[in-house]
Each structure stands twice: as structure tokens, then as C-alpha cells.
């Protein structure tokens, strides 16, 4: 059968950086001793100036490894890494986040700090937990407690529960309060009945238990990495010496998106640098839910010798600025007074059409996009299609429509569960078949699917026919019989070519079962390398599937490392493999493809990008055309609301004793929406297309605050 629908992606290009303006040049070429705080709105050219600064330093002969590019999040690195890529310097300039820095440092100074930090086995190396392995450890500790009745008043699925406890620990670390205060802070500020408030004590209990477990087994989740770094590594004189001699120049971009812990570090460290450029976006703060503290970032200006402001926009037309102001006013006041005039240039920035049903709106979006690409010659990478959330349904419907119109499209969702990838399911089904001792029951349907993916040209009908004759399942144990043993008539129907490929796969799996059991990650790597990537098999030249296989191998490997470190008894290979399969199935292991995302948000691939609005903003990349979908959704306005954690109450700016009520929720929501709308408009060169449907995909009428505000704006525009 044909390969699964694959995204059509155009050629990969790295656009050359624009020439610097006079103001940008002054910042970039400031003396090698300058400490500059650069601020301005989005689109003013700040990051371009930052990249210019980096190139200038290198051109001045500064050794690449002595320049530290510090960022709040890896996705923001693209402009810098692309520039370095062009200079073939990519490996030599450290581009780091606080987390990356902390991990490197803790690893380096481990023997000096492990004991002081309370680790039970300073003599053994540290094991760093990824988000998913931390989730796994938390699941093991908290799962049984929930059975005992913890969190009775809370309705949340287990994975979300674990991630909220981790989130609280991380907040404590990056905001800088002891993790023992989590419950007290939440209880003091949030309304709820007694049972609900008690759930915060349950959070506290679980967080403490997790921390103890980590200390006992040398495990470091993100929160512990940051805390150990700040409290035990950074104060070591030898550590400070190392830092000040290694890094001489600092470029710290998107300060507004970073956490108090990062800001504190920057403030203490700044005097040690020879030069520094801190870049602050006035409209930022999109990562507040991850602990970003824009106010704390702004305060770093005091620690710099000079403050430079870049105003105006190099991206958006002037009318976009006034449009953004009108839109914010409409968001805050629900209406625009008749005195407000919407100019023709402002009106022309918005293209819209009302549709009754959701599919009609999607058709319109696809047609408009195709027109831009095919009729107007717009490079696809200059178009983004944004929605508050990118559901499976939305992604699929739109990708399908655009591909039909021959528009290259790629989508990105930062958190996509491994189990939703067909290639993952194929690999794990084959792993289960090769390891009968695991006792994992394989469904015939899964085997059929695995066949269609694993064997090139295997169609669904023949896969099913094959499965009917070779797949034997009894008492939960599954066996595959040889193609050579089946009736000749079936040989004909399935074809000898496909049968031969099946036989190759089967014998490989059977041999693997005979051999000494390999750890799952090594097994998967060999399955991929020795069979699936070979000609005649499904992953041959299928780069998407190869990427999934790589991610799966890495995830299984990290999982093994953690279990081996924390619970050697449980690390028996069969048990490990079985456990890993279960965790993927349950969604505990959800590997986030950060590495793929980095390249996907960069301007490289020439395809229309389909992404959540927030994710697009965090890629900080202007485009010519934006489509806003689901404009009526409340998702544009609402934050991720979780019952067991709270980004604002746990922030450094939250005053003690203040209650978080609906008034706060609403006011913060409006401000967030304004910031989002302004941020998007400032990253748009030409036009915004509004996808308006009166009913959403479920048939609900839509009336979120963004829609109401746009409606008011459009009415005013129509009035002239």
C-alpha cells in the first residue's frame, strides 16, 4: 500500500539576514566592554541586533566559546543558530538555557556538591530526568497514594495529576521559594471547599516524597537541577571562577520570557562579564505559565550601564500599530465608541468572511492560502495558520485540504504523545512480538497495521489476509508462522514478494527472541537499522518514520537509565521492556519532540506552518500572512487552568495574602489576550485572515472575547 500521507515540504532554505539599520548597528558594534539593555516592542529588530552583536564579536576575534548566548527556551535560539550555521560556527558558541547551564554545571561539579546537596550516593554519577522520565518516577510514587484516597476532590486524569505536581516543584525552583511552601501558598490564595484545599496538602506530600526519592537515587528533575545549581554549585568559588573565565561575553535574549531564577543569576553574574547585551521585549511574557517574569526581566536594566530603546516596527506596516491599539481597546471594553475611526489602511489589514459551519470556514482558509501561494507567488513559509489549540481533527482536516490544493504544509504541536504516532505503534508491536516472555498481548489489528507500515507496498487487504494465516494467538501468547508453510493459493494472493519480505521480518524477530535479550532501546535501534530501514521495508527513505524511531529509541534509553539508577531490582530487561510499553500505552511516556520542533519553527522549510498561536509566538518569527482560526474560541483568552497549580499565585509578583478571584482571572485573561493579539499583529507583514464560523466544529455557537472584540472592530470599520 502507499505510504501514509506524508507532508509535502518544499526545499529547505535559510534566508539571509536583513542588513542592519543604523540603530541596530550601533548596538551590535558597541565597544567590547559595553553592557547594554536593549528594549522595544516585537518587530523592532532587537533580535536582529542581537545576532549582529554575536557576529560582530566573532568578527572582532572574540573566541566563539567565550560568548554565551542565553535564552529562556530552546525554540528561541533559531536566529542565532541559523547565523552560526551560516558561519559554520554552530558547534562552538554555547547557546544555552538556564536548565541546560544548570545541568552542565551540576554534572561538572558533582563530586564537590553531591553530598552537601543531600544526595545519598555522591560516589555515583547523577541521573538527569527528562520531563517524561520525571513523569514516570512521579507516577510510580503517586499512583499508589491515589488508590489510598489522595486527591479525592479533584477530577483529573493521572498523567495531568503527575505533571501538576512536577510543575509546582519547578515553580518553586524557578521562582525561588522552598518547595515545602507549595501547599501553603496555594491554600492562602485560591478559593475552594475544604476537600479541595486539602488536595493541596496532598500535592505537598507527593512533592516531598518525590524529592526524597530523587535524593535517595541521585535523580535530578528540572527543579532539582535548578536548585542544586543555584544553591550548591553557583556559590562554589571554583565554580564562579570557571564561569567567569569561560564566558566573557553575554547575549541574553528574550529576558522577558525567563524566570526569576534566571534573572537572579544574570544579575549576580553580570559584573563578571566583559560585555553583555540583554534584550527585552516589552510585549512579551507569553511563558508566564512556565514561570516567566517580565517585570523581573525589566528590572535587569538597572544592572546594565546603558539602556537602548528600539521603537517602531521593521515588520508590520504602521497601520498595524493603530489596529492593535483599537483591538486591545475592544478587548478591554467589549466595544469601540463611535468616536473611534478605523482607517482604510487598518481595515485592509484584516480579511474576513463569516461562515455558518466550521468545515466551510476551513474550505475558505484553504482556498485563500492556495490563492496566496499559487496566484500571488507567496512563498509558503510566509504563511502561518494559527489556532488557540491544534486538535488532531483540525490539523488533519486542514493538512488534507491544503495538500489537495497542492500547498506544502507542515504542522507543529509541541506536545504530541508518542502513542499517537503510527510508526511508534508499529515498532512497539514488533517489539512485543519478538519478546513473548513479556506476556504482552498483541491484537491482530495491531499486527495488521504494523505489517502495512513495516513492509513496503503491503496493502491493508493483503496484510489482513496474511495476518489471518500467520498470526496465532493463544492464551495471550502470540506466535507467527512461516510464510513458507501456508497454502499455495494464499501465496499467490499475498504475492511472493510481500511474503518474502514478511519472512525476512519474521525470521529477524524470531532470531531476536532467541538471542540474549537486548535492552529495548538497543533492540529498537537494531530493528530499525537491520530491517525496517532496508529496501523493501516501510521505513526505507521515510524520514518522518525514521525521526519517530529515533525519538522512541532515545526515550526508551533514558527510561532505562533512570530505572537502572533508581531501582536496579526493577531493571530486569524483560520487566523494563514490558513496563515501557505499558507506559507509552497509558500516555505517561509522551516524548515531546523538542528537537524536531526547533527546525520546524525556523524559517527553513518552505511550507505553510500550522501551529498553536502561542507556539508560533514563541518561535518569534515574522511572516507575511497569518490566518487566525477558531476566532470565537475561548481558548484565545483562557490560560491552561489546572486545579492543583497556579502560575500567578506561585509567581514572585503575587503579594502575600491576596486572593485569586474571578476578577483577577478575568483581568489577567484580558491582558493576556491583548498581549497575544498585539504580538501576532506585530509579527505580520501584510494581512491577517480571520476564520470566522458561527458554530464551532462541535456545532456550538462561538462567542469568545477575541471574536467579540473583532466583531466590534469590524462593525466600526464597516461604519467607516
Amino acid at each position: 500500500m502507499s505510504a501514509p500521507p506524508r507532508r509535502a515540504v518544499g526545499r529547505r532554505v535559510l534566508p539571509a539576514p536583513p542588513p542592519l539599520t543604523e540603530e541596530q548597528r550601533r548596538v551590535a558594534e558597541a565597544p567590547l566592554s559595553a553592557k547594554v539593555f536593549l528594549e522595544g516592542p516585537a518587530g523592532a529588530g532587537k533580535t536582529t541586533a542581537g545576532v549582529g552583536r554575536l557576529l560582530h564579536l566573532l568578527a572582532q576575534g572574540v573566541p566563539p566559546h567565550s560568548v554565551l548566548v542565553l535564552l529562556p527556551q530552546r525554540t528561541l535560539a533559531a536566529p542565532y543558530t541559523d547565523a552560526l550555521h551560516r558561519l559554520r560556527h554552530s558547534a562552538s558558541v554555547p547557546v544555552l538555557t538556564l536548565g541546560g547551564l544548570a545541568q552542565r554545571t551540576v554534572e561538572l561539579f558533582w563530586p564537590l556538591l553531591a553530598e552537601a546537596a543531600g544526595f545519598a550516593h555522591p560516589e555515583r554519577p547523577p541521573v538527569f530526568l527528562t520531563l517524561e522520565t520525571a513523569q514516570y518516577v512521579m507516577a510510580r510514587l503517586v499512583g499508589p497514594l491515589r488508590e489510598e484516597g489522595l486527591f479525592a476532590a479533584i477530577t483529573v486524569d493521572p498523567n495531568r495529576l503527575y505533571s501538576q505536581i512536577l510543575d509546582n516543584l519547578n515553580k518553586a525552583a524557578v521562582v525561588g521559594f522552598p518547595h515545602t511552601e507549595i501547599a501553603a501558598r496555594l491554600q492562602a490564595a485560591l478559593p475552594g471547599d475544604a476537600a479541595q484545599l486539602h488536595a493541596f496538602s496532598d500535592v505537598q506530600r507527593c512533592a516531598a516524597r518525590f524529592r526524597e526519592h530523587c535524593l535517595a537515587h541521585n535523580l535530578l528533575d528540572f527543579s532539582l537541577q535548578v536548585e542544586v545549581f543555584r544553591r550548591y554549585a553557583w556559590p562554589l568559588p571554583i565554580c564562579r571562577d570557571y564561569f567567569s573565565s569561560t564566558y566573557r561575553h553575554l547575549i541574553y535574549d528574550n529576558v522577558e520570557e525567563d524566570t526569576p531564577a534566571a534573572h537572579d543569576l544574570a544579575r549576580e553574574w553580570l559584573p563578571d562579564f566583559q560585555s553583555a547585551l540583554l534584550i527585552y521585549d516589552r510585549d512579551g511574557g507569553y511563558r508566564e505559565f512556565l514561570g516567566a517574569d517580565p517585570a523581573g526581566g525589566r528590572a535587569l536594566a538597572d544592572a546594565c550601564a546603558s539602556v537602548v530603546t528600539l521603537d517602531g516596527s521593521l515588520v508590520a506596516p504602521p497601520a498595524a500599530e493603530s489596529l492593535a491599539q483599537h483591538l486591545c481597546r475592544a478587548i478591554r471594553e467589549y466595544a469601540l465608541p463611535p468616536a473611534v475611526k478605523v482607517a482604510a489602511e487598518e481595515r485592509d489589514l484584516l480579511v474576513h468572511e463569516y461562515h455558518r459551519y466550521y468545515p466551510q470556514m476551513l474550505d475558505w482558509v484553504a482556498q485563500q492560502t492556495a490563492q496566496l501561494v499559487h496566484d500571488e507567488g507567496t512563498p509558503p513559509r510566509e504563511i502561518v495558520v494559527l489556532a488557540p489549540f491544534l486538535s488532531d481533527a483540525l490539523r488533519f482536516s486542514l493538512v488534507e485540504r491544503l495538500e489537495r490544493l497542492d500547498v506544502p504544509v507542515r504542522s507543529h504541536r509541541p506536545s504530541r504523545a508518542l502513542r499517537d504516532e503510527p510508526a511508534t505503534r508499529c515498532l512497539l508491536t514488533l517489539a512485543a512480538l519478538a519478546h513473548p516472555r513479556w506476556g504482552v498481548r498483541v491484537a491482530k489489528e495491531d499486527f495488521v497495521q504494523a505489517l502495512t507500515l513495516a513492509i513496503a507496498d503491503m496493502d491493508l487487504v493483503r496484510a489482513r489476509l496474511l495476518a489471518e494465516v500467520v498470526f496465532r494467538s493463544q492464551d495471550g501468547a502470540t506466535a507467527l508462522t512461516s510464510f513458507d508453510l501456508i497454502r499455495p493459493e494464499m501465496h499467490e494472493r499475498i504475492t511472493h514478494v510481500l511474503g518474502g519480505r514478511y519472512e525476512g521480518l519474521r525470521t529477524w524477530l524470531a532470531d531476536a527472541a532467541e538471542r540474549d535479550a537486548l535492552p529495548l532501546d538497543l533492540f529498537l535501534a537494531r530493528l530499525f537499522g537491520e530491517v525496517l530501514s532496508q529496501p523493501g521495508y516501510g521505513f526505507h527513505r521515510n524520514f518522518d518514520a525514521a525521526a519517530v524511531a529515533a525519538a522512541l529509541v532515545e526515550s526508551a534509553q533514558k527510561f532505562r537509565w533512570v530505572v537502572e539508577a533508581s531501582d536496579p531490582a526493577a531493571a530486569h530487561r524483560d520487566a523494563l521492556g514490558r513496563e515501557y510499553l505499558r507506559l507509552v500505552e497509558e500516555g505517561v511516556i509522551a516524548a515531546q519532540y523538542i528537537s524536531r520542533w526547533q527546525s520546524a519553527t525556523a524559517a527553513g522549510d518552505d511550507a505553510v506552518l500550522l501551529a498553536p498561536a502561542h507556539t508560533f509566538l514563541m518561535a518569534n518569527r515574522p511572516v507575511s500572512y497569518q490566518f487566525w482560526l477558531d476566532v470565537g474560541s475561548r481558548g484565545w483568552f483562557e490560560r491552561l487552568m489546572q486545579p492543583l497549580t497556579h502560575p500567578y499565585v506561585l509567581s514572585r509578583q503575587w503579594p502575600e495574602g491576596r486572593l485569586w478571584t474571578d476578577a483577577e482571572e478575568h483581568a489577567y485573561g484580558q491582558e493576556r489576550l491583548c498581549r497575544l493579539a498585539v504580538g501576532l499583529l506585530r509579527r505580520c507583514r501584510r494581512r491577517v485572515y480571520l476564520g470566522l464560523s458561527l458554530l464551532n466544529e462541535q456545532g456550538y455557537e462561538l462567542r469568545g472575547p477575541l471574536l467579540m472584540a473583532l466583531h466590534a472592530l469590524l462593525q466600526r470599520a464597516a461604519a467607516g
Partner: protein
Amino acid sequence: MSTDLPPAITSRHRLRPGQLEVLAYAGGRLGVSAVPGSGKTFTLALLAAKIVLSGWLQPDQEVLVVTLVNSAVDNFAQRIAGILKREGLLPTFGYRVRTLHGLAHDIVRERPALVGLADDFQIVDERVAQEILDDLALAWLQGHPDALDDYLDYGLDPKRLDWVRRDKLPDLVREIAASAVRYAKDLELTPEALRQRLEAADQPLPLARLVAEVYADYQAALAYRGAVDFDDLIRLALAALERDPALLERLQRRWPYVLEDEAQDSSRLQEQILRKLVGPAGNWVRVGDPNQAIYETFTTASPQFLLRFLEEEGVQRRELPTSGRSAQPIIGLANGLISWVRSAHPRPEARDALALPYIQAVEPDDPQPNPPAERATVRLVLNKLSPEMELKRVADSLERWLPEHPDQTVAVLAPRNDRGAQVVDELRRRKLAVVDSLLRSTASTRQAAGALANVLVHLAEPQSARRLAEVYRVWRRAEREDEEAWDAVEAMAKRLRGLPQVEAFLWPRPYHDWLAEQADLDEAAREDLAQFRDLVQRWHGATLLPVDQLVLTLAQDLFTAPSDLALAYKLAGLLRQAADAHPDWRLPQLADELRQIARNERRFLGFSEDDLGFDPDRYKGKVVVGTVHKAKGLEWDRVYLMSVNAYDFPAGEPSDQYISERWFLRGRLNLEAEALAQIRMAGGLAAFYSEGEATLAARLDYVRERLRLLYVGITRARRDLIITWNSGRNGQVGPALALVALAEMFPDSGSAAGGA
């Protein structure tokens, strides 16, 4: 504030005096009691439109309209939207129509964390809830094998006892738990609170203990799924309003006018939620017909809420007593029922089951005058008929009547689904045109779900030629209307059914391509099959997607009607939920689930099953079969009301038997009612519990509700009404007392043969 009606309303509608009085509303609290066919929903929709058009609202404000069922939501919204559109306004702004569940969902969605929910919380539908309860009921019985022995009939012989324990008790426990859990939620009793109160109780309350245990496990099961059920939604909405006054304040500002339709079915929590949203000095219009309250059993819903509201100080009272729906003889019969119940019902406690006013005919010059009395028929068939004979009589009558009245509408209404299904079978056997969507989900839901299910079944068994042929028929189903074209489709389907090797057609190899070998096919047929093959190949590729995406892909190819597409989105979501809840399910099980949806009634939250709800006028010349419950709000030229016997409409006489009383329980106890009484006691709502009282009270409640059901049934008819009864399976049941009384009051309407 101007109370004049906008021209968009006055220019199009000629309004009756009662309607004008309601539409003169300018604020405050207003209670309206209406009679069937008085246009109350219509009037309320006009009032909502008037408020939107009158400029009384700020841009961020809406009129909130609360009604009972989803189909009414659509009806309302369409009416208001129509008026706003004519005025050049965006048709979805300025108002919000919701069922209570929809409203509760909106409120909880505002701040899920406030009530302990993650923001991706799921809502399990009734079937999933029932599955969970089934498991828990079994588990509870296993843990307490003898706990209910004391309630069993002492006279049961040991053999039957075993059978009852094994076969009957699990269902009984589940049913007790289901209604008692719902009731406890209505009373805002958490499992923990119930448990604590039971510990403190000075009376043994074994049924309440049962409920408390199952309830706790049930909530834990939901919490673990990150889900709530429909009843939680309502309970949590009230909790949210109570926990954060700022939220309440914001919502009060958003909804300065609350219009409530079908207020006679308001429940305790609905009343509380709306009272909170309205506030002490707010604007609240409640419209209802206390005589049509038919959803009260085992809930706290009661027409008393509306009746008490009408008596409250400061509430303006209006009536909509005139109705142009029915001919005078039918109005007379309905009013006769009111009068008999209020003055002569043998149980004085049941005499308040129906309330005044009587129905009045409209003025003769009304744009919708009552059908002429002289051409109306009322037949009360009093002879004793077996169930089979009753069926036969009604079918005979329809067989005679239908051909002569192709332009009229007719319905057969039964008190229960299973009786309706028997009617459908009989009419189908006689090849009469039948519409049964009032018995189950609407036809469009079933067709769309059925089409998708057929394709899923093929994908699960791609090697089956029979399944493939079925998919072909689904793909070309639009041709059904054209007999000739459909014959061609059937012929092609037959050819596909005969495929020896499916893969030789769908995935041909160079040396073996079935389609190329079909020498007798003309070019068009060949092209048709090639197109079909392309499509199916694409679907095969889509089997790798998660099931919701798969369904959406299929839907894009199968449906064009927006409402079908919207439905597919909903079905996709339901299947995803099912897949998450049952990780071992694959395509065959998921296809089964879809078939279930295609067959059965499933409650969809906030989903428009059909754009306009059910419209009887679309089925002229066909027989609509439904339950009386489902027929509420609808009308037909001719109505057959069946099974009006003492079993389905008891009068509280000593000889009456009750559907909810089990033969294997001692003293014919109604354990659901007893469980609820024990919960009331535990919850502090009753001073003591005395066994058996609740059973008696439940009988009386049932008697009252069934009188109203009869009233609803009668008032569905415009011109002709035929009422029949049957003597039940054992031939022991008599006619409903009300029927006998009506026959005495209207001697001319009796008929020995039932041959109307």
C-alpha cells in the same frame, strides 16, 4: 426604557392578547402559566429577540434562555436568529440558549479549577456512566452477597432465590445506585458527606449505605478518568457560583435577563442556579405549563417550583390560556380531564396533579384558528383488548385512514419505548410508511452514524467482499431517491459481493487487475468503480490515524451537508473517548460502538441533532410512532394514544400494580424510592425513616405524573384523537380510571369497534 415592540416583530406576527401582555415585559420577575398550544415558546423567543433589539443590553451582555431539551434549544435559537437576521444583526449575538446541562457546562468551563476540574475534563455520557455503575453494582454484590436478603420476598423457593440473586439483583442494585446517586448529587451530598452522616445516623439505613459505597467508588472512577457526569456538571456549576462571588457577579452582569422555558420541569438545582444568576433584583421570566410536568420521577424536579414562584411577592403573573391547536372536542376532553382530576379523582392527594387554567379556544379571526369542531373526532375505545388486538385495531384503522388523508399528519403515541417498537414492527409488516425517530435518535443521526459504521466495519475486515459491497452502497446512497439509479447501484454492489479476491480489485497487481478484467462493464461503470477504488485506497491509508481522525477523514468524503459534518465531529469525539476508556479496543469494537450510537438514543451535550428539531409536518402521509414523552411540544392532525390502562396510568387504587415494584421483593417495596427516602433521612431532609412510606408516596407521585402524561398525550391532537387500552400480558389489567371517567363525561365519544 421603551417597551414598544420592534417592527421586526410586530410586522410579521399577529399576536394574541395574552402574548402581547407577556411581550410588554419591561423587567423584573414575571411568571407565565401557559396551556398546550398557546405558543409559549414562540412568545418567549419573541421576547428574547425584543430584548436584543431594544438596545437594553451592553455589547458584552446576553439574554440567557434556558430550556429543557436540545431540540428546543435549536428551535429557540433559530427563531431568535431569524428575527435578528431580518434586522441586519449578526444572528448569534446578544443571546444564548441553553439546556440546564449546557448552561452548567458554560459556567463550569469558565473556571474548571475552581471546582477541582482539569480544564480538559471530559463528560461521560449516560452509557459510559451506566457501564461504570454496572461494574460497581456487581462488585458491591460480590462484597455483600447477603446484604439485600432481608428485602427479598420470604416466600421465594430456594431455586428461584438463587436465580433472583444471580439475575435480578445486579440490575436492581445498579438501578438503585443510579437514581440514588443522581438524587444525592441533586441534594449536593458528596460521598464523603453521605458517609459521615450515615455514621452519625441513629437508624440503620442499609440502602443508603449501599448507595454511599457505590457512590464513592463511582466518583473515584470518574475522577480517575478526568471526567464528570451530567449530574456533576449541574452540581459543580452551583458550587462554582457559590465559591467565587466575583464569578457570580460577572455572570450576573453578562446575563441581565434570564428567560426560562418549560419551568414546570425545573429541579431544585436549576431553581437555585437561576436564582443565583438572577440575583435579588434581577430580571427573570419563567414560563411553563404545570400540567405538562412529566420528568419528575426520582428527581427533585417538580412543578411546585413554578407554582410557588407564581405566588411569590413581586412576581408579575400572566397567563397564556388560549390555544389554536386543537379542535373544540379535544380541548373539551383535556379540560374534562383537568376538571375530573381536581374534583373527582378517587385519591384526594392526587387532585392537585393538574392545575388551572382551562384551555380556551382562540378568537375565530385568529391567524391560527382552532380546527373546526364539526370535522373533529374523539374516540375513547373502552372495550377490553389484548395487547395484540389493540395493536391490530390501531393498525387496521391506520390502514384505512392513511390512503384517504395523504396530506395530514398522524402519530401513534405509547407510554413506553418497547410498546412503540411493537407498533413500528406491526406497521412495517403491513408495509405502511413509518417514521420512528421519536423512539430513538433522529434519522439523520442514525443515517450518518450508520454510514460511518459500515465503512469502519469494512476497514476492520478489508478482505470481505460483502463488507466492501456495503461500503459501495453507502458511498452511492444519494441514489436511493431514484429507483432506476438505485437498481444500478444494487447491481454493482452485487457484483462486488461476488468478488473472489478483494485485493485484486482494491490493490491490483500488474498481472491481476479484477477491474480491467470486467469486459462486460461500460466505460461509465468502469470509471465509477475506479473512483470508488481511489477513495477506498485513501481510507485504507487513514486506518493508521487515531480513530477520531479516521472518522473525520471518512466524513469529509462521505458527507457534504454541514449538519452531517458537524455530527461526524461529535461522533469522532465520542469514539476517541471510547478508545481512551478501553485501550484494548480496535476497529471492530469501535465500529460496534458506532453502530450502538446509530441504533440507540444517546444524549449529546449541546449537540443539534437536527437543525430544526423534529417537525411533524415533514411526514405527511406517514405514521410517526413515538412515546408521549418525546411528543411533548409537537402536534399532529390525528393522534392514537395507546395503552391507556391501569398499569401505565394507575389511579392509586388498591388493585393497581406499579412498574417500579419488583415481584421478588417483600411487600412490593419500591427499593429505589426507599433508597431515596433513606438518603433524604441521612441528608437531614427527613426526621425519620419508616419503611414502606416512600413506596406509597412514590405510587402517588407516579399517579400524578401519569395523569399529566395523559393530558400531554391528549393535547397533541389537532383534529382526531383515538384512545385505546389493553388488558396487559396476563389479561388482568383494566382501563385507566381517567379513561373511564372521560368516557362517562363524553358519552358520544365512545366506540365499540374503535373503527374511527
